[in-house]
């Protein structure tokens, strides 16, 4: 019996690799296993190798595994590309149709199973995926009954006969594999999971659900990888709440439309990836100077320009903090799990209204598209706070005097009135303006308005700006990261501890304004600070250096080849660093 394993299915893009992984993982999720999935895909629709690697564990896991236990191959390319990842007890289950060959230096066992033939005999070769799922279940020693519910949900609307055919395909695959394995059935038998109900979702689902819970009722967006799932989810769900999504003509329209909608009082958002964010920059400045709430999601991918559209990277950090000409108050958050993405997105709408400024939710491809187990989400913890929104009657002013929408206040935040409100008329402009919003270039006014805006987020209230795992008062290494690297750090940390190295972990959840006071003691309490990030220039390390003392301790662990970190990378490099310093 084992506690965790990794399963991967691969083939040509457009061949149904996704659905194979979907059925397999949904059933395991219902049994209570913790899952973490990561897709390898290319920027094309049909053809090209694609795979979906899913880790299954009886304990919480948020990282891709170093190695692989089971590889389901729909073509020889899948074997060639992935066999080296298989461990010594690895198993390849391949479709007989392509006459699979096990490479000479492969240590894995190859089983050729007639996926396509079995499926075709049952009526359609489309069901080859079900045969593969059945065969996988035999290796795992699973009862195929667990799949029935899932199959029924997927194919139920096509009729009972289709459901039965798919179950038969599953069963045939199972029996065929069982016969081949003989006494080896259940070589990869997992320990029983706890059977608890948990959610299984990608980060983008969590962001979209968080937006609904946070009161978002309008979205304007332009499709882009890896952000589109957010708009696709909301367009399905918003009509039932009276709201809608507009797919705009471009990214600039998406951002400015969201600004217009927020100005008029609905909680509205937009979402994109790096290329879209680059286009939105001028608009983000408009939100800043006009103090219009705005929630924007940036799902980072490989840059610059079109870069690596379907690969992991975390290189938008500096652009999100500093990117817009001029200076504005801004909040940049970076959830590290789907669970945090849910709560942080809901909270982003509160912060946008409370501080009347743009709020950027930074994600990355691995978090946005990686599918992970999420503990039940606690809706009761979601608050709706609208800051200084004026809801009562406004007394009539003398001589059509405008409402002081940009009143100079001690905290910099002014009362906000929505268009349509009687006696609340004021002007909004991206030009520097006075307290009523009328353009003014006077030096004293400029300074007063600039100071007012910049002091708004100075004392920002943010719950747990750093996710901390502090095990030692004095640590050898403090590992620092943001977004999806949390899981890999946690796993590497465990291994380093086993080596006798004392490790603390700080994952930055509020990137800007940077929680320096919270971070400084953690830096002080470590001999070395290693900042782990998927970019080439160490952007988070630089932000850290700008905000804390003792910067000579800070070093970077960088990966920018498009692939996420693996626990082994992090473990060995941190160990080397530790040993080098302790010779």
């Amino acid at each position, binding site marked *: 019996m084992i506690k965790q394993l990794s399963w991967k299915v691969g083939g040509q893009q457009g061949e149904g690799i996704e659905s194979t992984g979907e059925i397999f993982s949904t059933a395991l999720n219902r049994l209570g296993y913790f899952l973490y999935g990561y897709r390898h895909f290319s920027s094309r629709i049909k053809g090209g190798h694609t795979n979906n690697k899913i880790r299954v564990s009886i304990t919480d896991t948020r990282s891709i595994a170093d190695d692989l236990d089971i590889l389901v191959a729909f073509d020889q390319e899948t074997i060639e590309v992935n066999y080296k990842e298989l461990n010594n007890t690895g198993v390849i289950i391949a479709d007989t149709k392509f006459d699979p060959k096990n490479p000479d230096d492969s240590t894995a066992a190859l089983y050729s199973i007639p996926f396509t033939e079995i499926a075709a005999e049952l009526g359609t070769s489309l069901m080859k995926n079900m045969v593969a799922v059945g065969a996988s279940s035999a290796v795992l020693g699973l009862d195929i009954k667990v799949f029935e519910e899932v199959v029924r949900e997927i194919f139920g609307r096509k009729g009972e006969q289709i459901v039965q055919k798919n179950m038969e395909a599953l069963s045939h695959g199972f029996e065929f594999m069982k016969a081949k394995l003989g006494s080896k059935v259940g070589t990869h038998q997992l320990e029983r999971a706890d059977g608890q109900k*948990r959610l299984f979702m990608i980060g983008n689902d969590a962001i979209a659900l968080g937006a609904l819970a*946070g009161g978002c009722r309008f979205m304007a967006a332009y499709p882009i990888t890896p952000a589109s799932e957010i708009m696709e989810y909301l367009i399905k769900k918003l009509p039932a*709440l009276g709201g809608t999504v507009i797919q705009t003509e471009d990214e600039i329209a998406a951002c400015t439309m969201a600004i*217009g909608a927020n100005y008029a009082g609905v909680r509205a958002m937009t979402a994109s990836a790096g290329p879209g964010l680059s286009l939105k920059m001028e608009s983000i400045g408009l939100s800043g100077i006009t103090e219009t709430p705005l929630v924007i999601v940036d799902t980072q991918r490989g840059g610059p320009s079109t870069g690596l559209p379907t690969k992991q990277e975390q290189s938008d950090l500096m652009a999100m903090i500093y990117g817009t000409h001029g200076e504005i108050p801004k909040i940049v958050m970076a959830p590290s799990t789907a669970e945090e993405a849910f709560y942080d997105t809901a909270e982003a709408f509160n912060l946008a209204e409370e501080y009347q400024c743009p709020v950027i939710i930074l994600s990355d491809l691995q978090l946005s598209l990686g599918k992970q187990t999420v503990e039940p989400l606690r809706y009761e913890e979601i608050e709706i706070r609208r800051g200084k929104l004026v809801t009562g009657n406004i007394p009539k002013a003398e001589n059509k005097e405008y409402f002081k929408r940009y009143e100079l206040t001690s905290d910099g935040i002014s009362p906000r009135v929505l268009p349509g409100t009687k006696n609340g008329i004021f002007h909004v402009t991206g030009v520097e303006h006075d307290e009523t919003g009328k353009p003014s270039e006077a030096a004293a006014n400029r300074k007063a308005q600039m100071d007012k805006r910049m002091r708004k987020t100075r004392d920002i209230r943010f719950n747990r700006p750093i996710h901390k795992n502090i095990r030692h008062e004095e640590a050898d290494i403090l590992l620092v990261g943001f977004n999806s690297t949390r899981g890999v750090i946690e796993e590497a940390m465990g291994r380093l501890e086993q080596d006798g190295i004392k490790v603390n972990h700080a994952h930055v959840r509020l990137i800007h304004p940077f929680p320096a006071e919270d971070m400084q003691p953690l830096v002080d309490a470590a001999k070395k600070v290693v900042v782990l990030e998927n970019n080439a220039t160490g952007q988070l390390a630089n932000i850290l250096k700008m905000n804390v003392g003792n910067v000579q301790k800070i070093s970077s662990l960088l990966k920018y080849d498009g692939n996420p970190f693996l626990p082994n990378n992090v473990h060995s490099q941190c160990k080397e660093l530790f040993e080098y310093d302790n010779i």
Partner: protein
Amino acid sequence: MITFKDFRNDVKPNWCPGCGDFSVQAAIQRAAANSGLEPEKLAVISGIGCSGRISGYINSYGFHGIHGRCLPIAQGVKMANRHLTVIASGGDGDGFAIGMGHTIHAIRRNIDITYIVMDNQIYGLTKGQTSPRSEAGFKTKSTPQGSIEPALSPMEMALTAGASFVAQSFSTDLKDLTAIIEAGIKHKGFSLINVFSPCVTYNKVNTYDWFKANLTKLSSIEGYDPSDREAAMSTLMRHNSLVTGIIYQDSERKSYQELIPGYAETPLAHSDLNLGQERFDALAAEFM
């Protein structure tokens, strides 16, 4: 009783004396009053350029945005609060150069807003460069030998983009212009109104006198039927687009808002932000 004076504020426009934009401002104020609007129920969203300042000169809610983007901002405002009357406004550079992508798609989308372009065939605020509306041969600071690009016809373009309301006017015809803006406000869908608004400082070709000599009123063309799209197009072509009046109107077409599935009658700005536990549980269950 609301009059145009209720739409006046205390800000003195920074336009040059004689600028056509003064009349456009007056026409919007009159049309708003004639439409029975309260000032707080009107939102004027403007772009960047001399004309973009107009949102600050009308006593109503106003939003002076960024260059070329008044249309997406205005559409966002209308989507958030369908009870507001939304007027978007800007110059020919704003709408037909930097913002052209938005103009075409706002026309297609047909959200119920009125877009007034103050067309002076030149870039005024940057002190005299060519515009997409400048005629070929037009000499400016950026085209010292004369423009080698032809002028765009926004009216023809709007017709081909599927516009439901296309009109053109001349800023000195205050009465006609007011009536057209009123019709635009009343129209259920996107209304595009191009107004020839001469720049007295930088455009010495397309002057008041030039327009008076060259414009044809559609009302003077016998039997002109603004519901006939084909006739509208051929009339524009025949007159080199130099016509004024309502060129085309499709009163049958539904606005974008009327077509959105589930779109609330209550403005979204006033919607309940709480999902409720039951609804949330149902959404979460889809991920189990």
